[in-house]
C-alpha cells in the first residue's frame, strides 16, 4: 500500500516531512504514527491506516512534497516484500502492482481516496485519470487547457501543464542579482519556510488578480470601551482571583463585523471564478501574528456567539496554534477577515484581500481625538480609523459603503451586540 502525502486543507498544496517515527523494515499497525509533516498552516502527525512492514521510505526528512505524492510504501504482512523501486528496476515495463489471488467474484476494492469532482467550477470536465494525476502532481486543474472533446481535460493535458508549470513562487527576482546589489555588506540569508512561501504566492496572486478598492471611516469607541470596562470589571474570579474572561476590543470588532454582514448579506460572499457564493453565516477570520508569519483562525457563525464566547474561542485557537495542534481546516473558509494593528499604534492602513474572500477589514489604533460638538464647541472622543478593502467583482462601492456603515453603527451602538 502506498502512503500518500495527506491533504491538510483545501489550499495546502505541499508539506515538509519533519520527522519519521518509523524506519524501513519496521512493522506498523493502524494508528501507529508514521511521520510528522509541516505545512504552511500547521504541523501534524500522520498515522498508518494499515498493517504491514515499511518496505520503502521515499521522502526524507526536510523534503517538500506535493499533496498526494507517495512518501512511503507499506508491504503486506510478509516480511520480505521487495520495494517498488527495486522491483521496477528489475522488470522493464511493470504492470501496476496487484495483489495475488484477486477474486472479483467475491469482492472488489474501490479506490482508497477520491480525486475531486469530474466537473470543475469553470464548467470543464476532467477524466478520472487526469484528476488523479493533477492531485499527484499538485496541479490546479482550473488552469489546465483541455484538448478532449466537449472541453474534457485528459491525462495528456495535465502532463502538458506539469511540464510547462513554473515552480513557485513567481521567480522574477533572482537571489544572485539581489545579492549583487548588496555586495560587501554583511547579511544573513533566510530560506523560505512553507508558510512564507504561501504568503508570498497568495498575496502576489491577490494583488495581481483582485480588483481592490478601499473604503475608510472614523468610528467612535467610547460606548464600546465603557461596556468593555464594565464587563471586564464584573467578570467572576476563580479561587486564585483570576477573572473568568478578559475581553479585548478585537473581540467586539469580530462580533460587530459578524452582525454587520448579517445586515448586509450581499457582502457576505466570496468569488468563485465563474460565480459568487453567498453565505448565511458570518464566519470571521482573524489575522493573528505568529512567529514567522501569520495565521487566520476562523470564528464560525460569529453572529450567533456572545462576545465572551468569541473571546474564549480566539484564545483557544491561538493557544492551539502555539501547541501545533491546530487543524488547518480551522484556519480556512472564512467569509471575511479582520486585521487589527491598533495595538501597535498604527493610525490607519489598508489590508490585502485573502482570496477567495471579497472583503477584509483593517482596524487602526483608537485614540483620543477632538471633534466638534453640535453647539460649535469641542470635545474629545475615543476614535479609530477603519478601512475595508473590497473585491469589486463581488462588492461594489455602494454595497461596501453599506457594510462599512453597518459596522460603524454596530461599534457605536454596542449594546445591540450584547442583547
Amino acid at each position, binding site marked *: 500500500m502506498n502512503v500518500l502525502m495527506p491533504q491538510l486543507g483545501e489550499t495546502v498544496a505541499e508539506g515538509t516531512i519533519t520527522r519519521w517515527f518509523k524506519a524501513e523494515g519496521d512493522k506498523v499497525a493502524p494508528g501507529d504514527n508514521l511521520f510528522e509533516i509541516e505545512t504552511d498552516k500547521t504541523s501534524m502527525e500522520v498515522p498508518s491506516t494499515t498493517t504491514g512492514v515499511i518496505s520503502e521510505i521515499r521522502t526524507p526528512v526536510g523534503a517538500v512534497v506535493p499533496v498526494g505524492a507517495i512518501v512511503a510504501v507499506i508491504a503486506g504482512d510478509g516480511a520480505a516484500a521487495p520495494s517498488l523501486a527495486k522491483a521496477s528496476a528489475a522488470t522493464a*515495463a511493470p*504492470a*501496476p502492482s*496487484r495483489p*495475488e489471488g*484477486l*477474486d*472479483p*467474484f467475491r469482492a*472488489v*476494492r*474501490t*479506490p482508497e481516496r477520491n*480525486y475531486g469532482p469530474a466537473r470543475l467550477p469553470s464548467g470543464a470536465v476532467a*477524466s*478520472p*485519470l*487526469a*484528476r*488523479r494525476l493533477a492531485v499527484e502532481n499538485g496541479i490546479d486543474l482550473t488552469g489546465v487547457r483541455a484538448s*478532449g*472533446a466537449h472541453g*474534457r481535460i*485528459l*491525462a495528456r493535458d495535465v502532463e502538458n501543464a506539469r511540464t510547462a508549470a513554473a515552480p513557485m513562487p513567481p521567480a522574477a527576482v533572482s537571489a544572485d542579482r539581489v545579492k549583487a546589489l548588496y555586495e560587501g555588506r554583511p547579511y544573513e540569508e533566510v530560506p523560505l519556510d512553507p508558510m512564507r512561501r504561501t504568503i508570498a504566492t497568495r498575496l502576489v496572486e491577490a494583488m495581481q488578480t483582485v480588483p481592490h478598492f478601499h473604503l475608510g471611516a472614523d468610528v467612535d469607541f467610547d460606548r464600546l470601551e465603557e461596556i468593555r470596562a464594565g464587563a471586564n470589571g464584573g467578570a467572576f474570579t476563580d479561587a486564585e482571583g483570576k477573572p473568568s474572561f478578559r475581553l479585548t476590543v478585537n473581540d467586539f470588532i469580530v462580533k460587530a463585523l459578524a452582525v454587520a454582514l448579517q445586515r448586509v448579506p450581499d457582502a457576505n460572499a466570496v468569488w468563485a471564478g465563474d460565480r459568487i457564493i453567498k453565505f448565511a453565516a458570518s464566519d470571521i477570520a482573524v489575522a493573528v501574528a505568529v512567529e514567522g508569519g501569520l495565521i487566520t483562525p476562523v470564528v464560525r457563525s460569529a453572529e450567533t456567539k456572545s462576545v465572551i464566547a468569541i473571546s474564549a474561542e480566539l484564545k483557544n485557537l491561538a493557544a492551539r496554534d502555539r501547541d501545533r495542534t491546530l487543524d488547518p481546516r480551522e484556519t480556512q473558509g472564512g467569509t471575511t477577515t479582520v486585521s487589527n494593528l491598533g495595538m501597535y499604534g498604527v493610525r490607519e492602513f489598508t489590508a490585502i484581500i485573502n482570496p477567495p474572500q471579497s472583503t477584509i477589514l483593517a482596524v487602526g489604533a483608537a485614540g483620543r481625538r477632538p471633534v466638534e460638538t453640535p453647539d460649535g464647541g469641542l470635545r474629545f472622543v475615543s476614535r479609530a480609523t477603519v478601512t475595508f478593502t473590497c473585491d469589486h467583482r463581488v462588492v461594489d462601492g455602494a454595497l461596501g459603503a453599506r457594510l462599512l456603515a453597518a459596522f460603524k453603527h454596530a461599534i457605536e451602538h454596542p449594546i445591540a451586540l450584547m442583547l
Partner: protein
Amino acid sequence: MAELTYREAVARGIAQEMARDPDVIFFGEDVAKAGGVFKATVGLYEQFGPKRVRDTPISEQAIMGAAMGAAMTGLKPIAEIMFSDFFAVCFDYIANEFPKGRYMSNGQTKCPLVVRTGNGAGSRFGAQHSQSVENWCMMVPGLKVVAPSTPRDVIGLMAAAVRDPDPVIFFEHKSLYAVKGEVPDGEIVDTLGSAKVVRPGTDATVLALALMVPRALAAAEKLAAAHGIQVEVVDVRSLVPLDMQTILGSVGRTHRLFTVEENPRLCGWGAEIVSIVADEAFYDLDGPPVRITTPHIPLPAADNLEDIALPTVERIAQTIRRALEA
C-alpha cells in the same frame, strides 16, 4: 509443431485427456460413429471404443443427467450439447445441479465434468441456433466458464477443464471450427482463469472472446496501419475464474478500455468487467469504457443481416478510433 484446425484441436484435446486418464469418457448426440455434426470429434470412437465414446438419444436432459451421475460416481465425463442454445432445455442441471451439489452435500459429492458446446453465430443457423450464451453460465455461482479462440487454447484449456474438480462449461465457437493455427507437439495443459495479451499496445485495451478475438486483432492492425493507433488486444479466454489481474494491468498501462462481445448487449460479460474496472481502476481511466456488442435482438438467419448484426472488423476499428479521437 503442427498446423491444426480448431475442430481437429477439439478431438486432439479430448484424446489427450482420454489417453492419460481411463476415467475420462465422452458422449453426446452423433458424436461417436458420425464424429459429431461439426466433425469435431472424428476418430475418438475408433481410438477409444464404444465403452468410452458413446452416442446418446436426442435428449439434452438425459445427456446432462448421465454426465452428472457419472461424475458423482467417480468418472470424469465430457458431454456435448450440440448447440449452446439448447442449454435452455437442460438448464436445471447446469444451473441447479452441477454447481450446487458439492456445496449442499458439504463436499460429500463432487461433479468433475466438462460440458462442450457449439456456441455463437456466423453460420446462418438462425435465432435459435446461433446465440452466444456464455453469460448465461457466467452468472451461475459454482460453474467455471471458458471460451478458447485458437486451436492451441482449445487443447490446453480442454486439459485444464477435464482436470478441474468442478463443472466446467467449455464454449467452442462454431465459426472458428475451420480456423487453423500452430500447435506444439506433445501434451498441452493450460490454466483456467488466465487471460492472454495477444497483441501489445499503448493506446487502449481491447478485450475480446472467442470469434471476436481474430476480429479485434484485425481491427487493431487496421488502426495501426491507417491511424497509428496501437491497441492492446487481450483474449479473455476464461470468464470464470476471471483474470482481472491481467485486465487491470493492461488498463493501468493504456488508460482506455473497450470490450468486443458477440453476446447481445444487455448483461454481456463485458458489462461485468467494465463494472469491476470502474470499481478498481476508476482513476486509471482517461475516458469512458466502451462496449462493442451485437445489438439486443434475436439473430437473423439471412446472411447479410447476420453479418452486420455481429461486431465487424470495420465497426470495431471505427468505434475505437472515434472514441479515442473524441
